[in-house]
């Protein structure tokens, strides 16, 4: 039997297009135009999932974004899995595969359900906190199983095959919601010539008109919608976005829209199409036409499948041609809900009774229902329903709201559908995303947007304007206002005529009383998605949770993807009554973005795979690849780490590269070092202030190493700066610190010393740097340059200009390895040619390319620091034994000088950088290992420092390390111990941090 609950006619579905889909392994049929929820209901599928906490069977409850139960897993293949999709918001397509997100072994026979039944009373709010509290460390263990039992959908284990992207817009007026008020606003704004975006979360525009009984100008309301869409499409500067949820209202009118472009077409996006898109919109004015959301009444067993929102029943009947039952009981406190009774009769189904909580309802729709002979029970409500996997009956009884009690035993009415309506809650989520507190309005029994500094206009249902004619007028006026505030002249327009019916006031009933009292009555659910009952909220208030935010967190009311769409106001009302305060006194919780869940695909957009983050390559990347380099990431840079030959591992390669540099000559690509060009008459003075050492006497042609400190006196960068001319310097920084240092220079120049005439330009990418290092570097370089490399003519710490490989170059004679070294800087686009010439000339010298690892080893052998490895933001130059680099007599109080003279920075026993030599030369001290003086001390031991750099494979032939030790510089020759995790202890001698060539003779040959 197919589509047992499909009405013979009606609805906006295309009955000529039959679509097959699968739910929990079973095949069903539906029509194009169906939502997944409509198709499931058409096939009489009652149980859609199991509830979050008690594992109770749940069915489809609503028809839109507010759906709490039908939250499904969608996807035909592993790679296309999407969790947390509301069946009410998913269009049906051929081959759709959906499964319940929880329920084990399946939704109809659920093991956890037994626990829910038996343990319902045993699982009060805070159950998990109370039960799994001790021992504290075990929470992590418990949590895994608790989460598994609850089931929240799952993410795919394979890569998403689809493409997602972002689009940025500026517009004059962004209209959120394309219901009657939104469309009226769109017309007004668009006709004025403003750039307008209209976004609506549904499959098609129309909002409440999609299933409305009402007419406009005497014709079906959707005809007017069609005309409006046609007109808007013709106007320039108008963008219409259906299937696009405005999910977040962010600062300064920045809104994010989640558009689902192809989710209605299939499991995967058609080839070449983007599946989902995030629109990032900066709007001059925003019109919020988000409408209102019906809220249910809270009564016993209101979660049994077959209980539904009244408006949702109308939607299924009128929009999808689906009757989710045969015999309807309606429980209401307002006039609007009567339309479901009329729709139901029109669909040829039976209305068993309407229970109206009001004592004498006389509104137009009520009278229309009376005229149809519908049985109306006044001052009554559905107290509870019965049925296990579907409703079989509802008990309607008279209630006394003054005493909040049941006034008569009432009667059980046989039915298979209970529609409920407790009035409407304006959808204030977006209006509240920026913290604007909603205001309670007693006349409409709902929260409306409060005052807010945002440049926005709220129209229609969100203002509590529910009549169609009023809504259109409110929308049009709002559109005019938004457009004129955005600088456009409004154009007059005539609105279609709507029949404004007389509606009587809604009665303030939220929680229907029960004879047994809330605690003992059948479960009365407030938040179906999070399984929060009225009893749980009352218990929370009795346990002392008085703030609405605390009640929310204790009970989970309105948590997660639900964001309190259905349960918020009812929960507040129950808490308020329990605490004997009014609803406005109780206040409401914060609504946060996003309004409905957004897929990670959409969030990531194009920022995934190899373009997740930009990668920076030097000009010599291709050559490194050809040499078989292994790369390491340094910031965004890819730097050659080592160049293995003949299957060497890291250690073997590094040992060979180190030896080659020490014995003959090596070449390193140092292009990634930050280079900042500094010019201006005050450049020298600026350097004096920013570096710890003195720059006044650095002659043109010379270079100097400098340390940079923060104001607190702690080292934060270092590098060599060369004097190109009296007003022109080039500074090098660490690879990772380049951007930070540039910003550091700028902030001091711009905010502290604007009187200094000096300018900074990053030239990191403009020059490639080739470092030749080793005793044969002079001989090799002399073969490719016209620069006089003579020891006297081109001394250490100077630079020269000339041709290298036929290309203009700056050559710096500086050394980071302790060997005779030349750093050749060439314009980056010539670098490859120069490199090839050097390599060719280097063959007789066994010129060996080396990577960052060898560079690290060689510099450590010389005791040169790496900022960020041997320092951690808590070390002064003195701590690093680099007091020689501190200009103690400089006249200006340079950055760091005051800080490093604080009492704490000059005390004894600070941690100081020293060399560490394991007593057993084969042992390697792990980097980061803690050091102690007394290895026999009981735990907790007194830690006196740690290892910062450590190398077992090097040119020295023994393992060595650098580290910081309390008072270390006065402890040279003493021993420290490093207790390891496995219980062993490595003993090391404190030595000078300069292991190799302490007199510095090798760089000066």
């Amino acid at each position, binding site marked *: 039997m197919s589509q047992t609950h499909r009405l013979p006619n009606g609805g906006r579905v295309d009955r000529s297009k039959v679509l097959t889909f699968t739910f929990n392994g079973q095949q069903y049929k539906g029509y194009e135009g169906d939502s997944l929820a409509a198709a499931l209901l058409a096939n009489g599928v009652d149980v859609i999932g199991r509830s979050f906490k008690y594992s109770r069977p749940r069915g489809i409850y609503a028809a839109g974004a507010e759906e709490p139960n039908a939250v499904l897993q969608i996807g035909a293949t592993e790679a296309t899995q999407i969790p947390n999709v509301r069946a009410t918001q998913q269009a049906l397509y051929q081959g759709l595969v959906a499964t319940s997100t929880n329920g084990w072994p399946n939704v109809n026979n659920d093991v956890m359900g037994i626990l829910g039944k038996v343990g319902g009373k045993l699982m009060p709010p805070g159950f998990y906190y109370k039960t799994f509290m001790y021992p504290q460390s075990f929470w992590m263990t418990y949590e895994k199983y608790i989460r598994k039992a609850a089931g929240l959908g799952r993410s795919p284990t394979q890569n998403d095959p689809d493409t997602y992207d972002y689009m940025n817009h500026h517009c004059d007026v962004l209209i959120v919601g394309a219901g009657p008020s939104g469309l009226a606003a769109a017309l007004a704004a668009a006709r004025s010539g403003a750039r307008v975006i209209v976004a609506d979360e549904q499959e098609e525009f129309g909002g409440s008109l999609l299933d409305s009984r009402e007419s406009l100008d005497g014709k079906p309301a959707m005809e007017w919608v069609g005309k409006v869409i046609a007109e808007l499409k013709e106007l320039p500067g108008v963008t219409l976005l259906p299937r696009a949820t405005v999910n977040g209202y962010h600062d300064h*009118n920045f809104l994010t829209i989640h558009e689902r472009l192809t989710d209605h077409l299939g499991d995967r996006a058609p080839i070449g199409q983007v599946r989902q898109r995030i629109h990032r919109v900066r709007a001059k004015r925003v019109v919020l036409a988000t409408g209102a959301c019906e809220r249910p009444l809270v009564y016993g067993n209101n979660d049994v499948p077959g209980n539904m929102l009244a408006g949702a029943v109308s939607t299924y009947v009128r929009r999808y041609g689906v009757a989710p039952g045969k015999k309807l009981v309606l429980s209401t406190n307002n006039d609007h809900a009567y339309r479901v009774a009329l729709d139901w009769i029109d669909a040829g189904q039976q209305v068993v009774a309407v229970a109206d909580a009001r004592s004498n309802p006389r509104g137009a729709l009520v009278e229309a229902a009376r005229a149809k002979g519908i049985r109306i029970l006044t001052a009554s409500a559905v107290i509870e329903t019965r049925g296990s996997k579907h409703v079989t009956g509802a008990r309607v009884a008279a209630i006394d709201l003054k005493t909040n009690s049941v006034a008569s035993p009432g009667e059980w009415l046989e039915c298979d559908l209970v529609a409920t309506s407790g009035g409407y809650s304006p959808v204030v989520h977006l209006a509240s995303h*920026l913290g604007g507190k909603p205001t309670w309005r007693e006349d409409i029994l709902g929260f409306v947007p409060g005052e807010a500094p945002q440049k926005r206009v709220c129209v229609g249902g969100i203002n509590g304007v529910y009549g169609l004619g009023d809504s259109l007028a409110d929308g049009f006026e709002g559109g005019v206002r938004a457009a004129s505030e955005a600088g456009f002249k409004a154009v007059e327009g005539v609105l279609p005529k709507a029949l404004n019916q007389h509606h009587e006031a809604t009665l303030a009933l939220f929680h229907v009383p029960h004879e047994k009292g809330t605690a003992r009555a059948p479960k009365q659910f407030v938040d179906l998605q999070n399984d929060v009952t009225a009893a749980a909220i009352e218990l929370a208030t009795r346990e002392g949770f008085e703030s609405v935010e605390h009640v929310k967190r204790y009970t989970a009311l309105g948590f997660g993807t639900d964001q309190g769409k259905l349960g918020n106001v009812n929960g507040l009302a129950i808490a308020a009554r329990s605490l004997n305060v009014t609803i406005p006194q109780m206040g409401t919780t914060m609504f946060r973005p996003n309004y409905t869940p957004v897929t990670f695909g959409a969030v990531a957009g194009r920022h995934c795979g190899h373009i997740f983050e930009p990668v920076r390559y030097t000009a010599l990347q291709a050559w490194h690849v050809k040499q078989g380099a292994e790369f390491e990431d340094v910031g965004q840079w890819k730097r050659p780490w080592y160049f293995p030959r003949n299957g060497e591992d890291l250690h073997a390669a590094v040992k060979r590269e180190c030896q080659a540099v020490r014995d003959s000559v090596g070449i390193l690509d140092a292009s990634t070092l930050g280079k900042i060009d500094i010019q201006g008459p005050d450049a020298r003075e600026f350097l004096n202030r920013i570096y710890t050492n003195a720059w006044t006497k650095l002659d043109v042609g010379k270079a100097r190493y400098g340390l940079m400190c923060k104001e607190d006196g702690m080292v934060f960068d270092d590098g060599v700066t060369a004097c190109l001319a009296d007003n022109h310097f080039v500074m090098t920084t660490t690879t990772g610190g380049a951007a930070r240092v540039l910003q550091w220079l700028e902030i001091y120049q711009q905010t502290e010393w604007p009187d200094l005439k000096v300018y900074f330009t990053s030239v990191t990418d403009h020059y490639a740097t080739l470092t030749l290092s080793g005793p044969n570097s002079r001989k090799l370089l002399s073969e490719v340059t016209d620069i006089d490399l003579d020891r006297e003519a081109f001394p250490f710490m100077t630079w020269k200009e000339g041709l290298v490989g036929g290309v203009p170059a700056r050559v710096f004679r500086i050394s980071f390895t302790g060997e005779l070294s030349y750093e050749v800087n060439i314009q980056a686009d010539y670098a490859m040619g120069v490199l090839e010439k050097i390599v060719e000339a280097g063959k007789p010298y066994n010129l060996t390319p080396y990577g960052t690892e060898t560079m690290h080893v060689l510099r450590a052998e010389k005791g040169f620091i790496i900022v960020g490895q041997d320092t951690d933001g808590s070390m002064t130059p003195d701590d690093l034994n680099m007091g020689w680099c501190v200009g103690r007599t400089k006249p200006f109080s340079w950055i760091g000088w005051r800080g490093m003279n604080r*009492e704490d920075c000059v005390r004894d026993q600070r941690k100081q950088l020293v060399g560490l030599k394991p007593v057993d030369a084969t042992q390697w001290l792990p980097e980061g290992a803690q050091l102690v003086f007394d290895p026999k001390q009981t735990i907790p031991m007194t830690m006196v420092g740690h290892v910062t750099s450590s190398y077992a494979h090097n040119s020295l032939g023994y393992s060595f390390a650098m580290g910081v030790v309390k008072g270390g510089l006065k402890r040279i020759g003493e021993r420290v111990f490093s207790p390891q995790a496995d219980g062993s202890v490595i003993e090391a001698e404190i030595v000078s941090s300069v292991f190799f060539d302490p007199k510095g003779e090798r760089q000066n040959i």
Partner: protein
Amino acid sequence: MLHIFCPHCGELRSEEEFHASGQAHIPRPLDPGACTDAEWGDYMFFRDNPRGLHHELWNHVAGCRQFFNATRNTVTYEILETYLIGTQPQFTEQAAPLTTTATREQGEKV
């Protein structure tokens, strides 16, 4: 995401082009050496955390790389003005109490 008027570029640009650099109007002491530890500590570490108007330093890092000041309401996140380093704000807690909204909409072509 804030919309910030860069007084150097003369345009409203999105927050992602900018970098916030903390409270504005905290000059480096002219003679740090003359500061007591307490005074130096104040300069180094102590900042206001007002509910209301806050003068802060911003950097147009992905634009002109220039620093400027902004007066921002920490409750509503409204930016009442941006102004050049070395100039004084028009809006202060005393001169513009919380209830008045920004009157000047820099850069917005209305």
